């Protein structure tokens, strides 16, 4: 009856773990490890300069740009590490693994799609960020709906999605705005670092 809760929790943890195991095994230069740490730190503290502006945070923007330049695997690790570290400051809870999965998948998706030409156009990137603003919110809704509402019905999902729609929309709009205005600039900054130190991603 109530098995959704522990099973969904275990499944999420099990889906994050392989990325970290791979990160441990992979042959990486010291530069790449420090770069991963720096981008995760930027993502974790990205909320600070925006504290005065509610509903806007550049963490997702940073995670997407990291995935685009460093590739899918590093993108996942950067996104999920930013989530776990910001929660070390803000407080861990049952939502931590879901947040790690949501931000990790955002970086992963950006990395997987980075060879597509439209991901290098401002509007393509903005559309990607807009979609992921909603996907992030929906992944975070899942832990609540799957774990705590029963029986699962379309009303349960619709209700949760409607309740979070305002936040998801402002997240999506913020992502799109950041990517539109600053995506090119960050792409140049990160690309230069990658070239300068011979890190060609994966």
């Amino acid at each position, binding site marked *: 009856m109530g098995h959704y809760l522990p099973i969904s929790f275990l499944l999420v943890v099990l889906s994050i773990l392989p990325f970290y195991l791979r990160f441990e095994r992979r042959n990486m230069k010291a530069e790449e490890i420090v770069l991963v740490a720096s981008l995760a*730190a930027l993502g974790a503290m990205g909320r600070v300069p925006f504290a005065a502006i509610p509903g806007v945070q*550049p963490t997702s923007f940073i995670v997407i740009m990291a995935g685009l330049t460093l590739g899918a695997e590093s993108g996942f690790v950067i996104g999920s590490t930013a989530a776990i570290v910001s929660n070390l400051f803000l407080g861990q809870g049952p939502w931590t693994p879901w947040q790690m999965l949501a931000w990790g998948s955002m970086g992963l998706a950006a990395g997987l799609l980075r060879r597509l030409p439209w991901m290098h156009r401002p509007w393509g990137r903005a559309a990607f960020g807009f979609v992921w603003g909603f996907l992030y919110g929906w992944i975070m809704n899942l832990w609540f709906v799957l774990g*705590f509402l*029963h029986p699962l019905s379309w009303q349960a999902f619709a*209700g949760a999605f409607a309740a979070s729609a305002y936040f998801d929309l402002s997240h999506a709009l913020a992502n799109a705005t950041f990517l539109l205005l600053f995506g090119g600039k960050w792409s140049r900054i990160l690309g230069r*670092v990658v070239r300068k130190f011979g890190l060609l991603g994966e």
Partner: protein
Amino acid sequence: MTGGFRSLHPLAAALYFSGLVLFVMWLVHPAYLLAAGGCLLLLHLQLDGGAALGKAWKGYLAMGALVALANPLVSTRGATILGYLGNRPVTLESCVYGLLFGLTLSVMLLGFGAARQVITLDRFLYLTGTGLPRTAFVIVMVLRLVPLLKRRLREIAAAAKTQGRLGGGKRTARIREAMELLNTLVVWTLEESLHMAVAMRASGYGSGPRSTFAAYRMEGRDKGVLVLLGGLALPILAGSLWGRGQMVFYPLLSGLELHLPHYGAFLFWCALPILMNIGETLQWQIIKSKT
């Protein structure tokens, strides 16, 4: 208090809390949840006199209440209709389901709150470092970088202010200004991080396996607790797979039958930290009175 359960080896503490959270998620039954919730409240009192709880209890209750309210609103299953909301029936079964799962969430949050005090940051890093050394290393670097980046950001903002580039004003203008600061910060940080990597390699990073500084020794007591936890986990897990400690909600509520040995094992798991703390206090009293 600093001794007692708090001084347990991180591995045993992590096993204890993972088990606790797993069982609480699994065994949604009033008697089980009340036992776990009561023990965790006592543990909070023992750990810091309830200071952390004093700040967080409203949030824990609010999240539990949200679940309790949301379920009857979205679920119409169940045979006992209490009334109608618009034209949707509200059933007793979905209300009870919501209440119990709300309680589950609150108890889980209590558990996370206690775990945060017992498995402090250094213990967390020790645990991560034993299985995932590179990940732990990255987390340490991030933990160092976050305050450093905040300081750098303040410096950049101060410089921008003297140049008259921080005007404030409209929302869009403020977002743009904050982002300009972030652009400067990322260039500075990435440049610096590469110097850091060069310095790391110069001091021998990657020339062999990483050694770790382990401040925790597995003592006889820790091994004893690990064996005890293992011995308790087996019957609890087996009983839970057998269906003990779980209610049936739909279409009709089942009874609340308790299988006492299973419940006893679970209760012992929940009460273990409290018992350890009480034992420690007693022992201290005895030693003190001898001198």
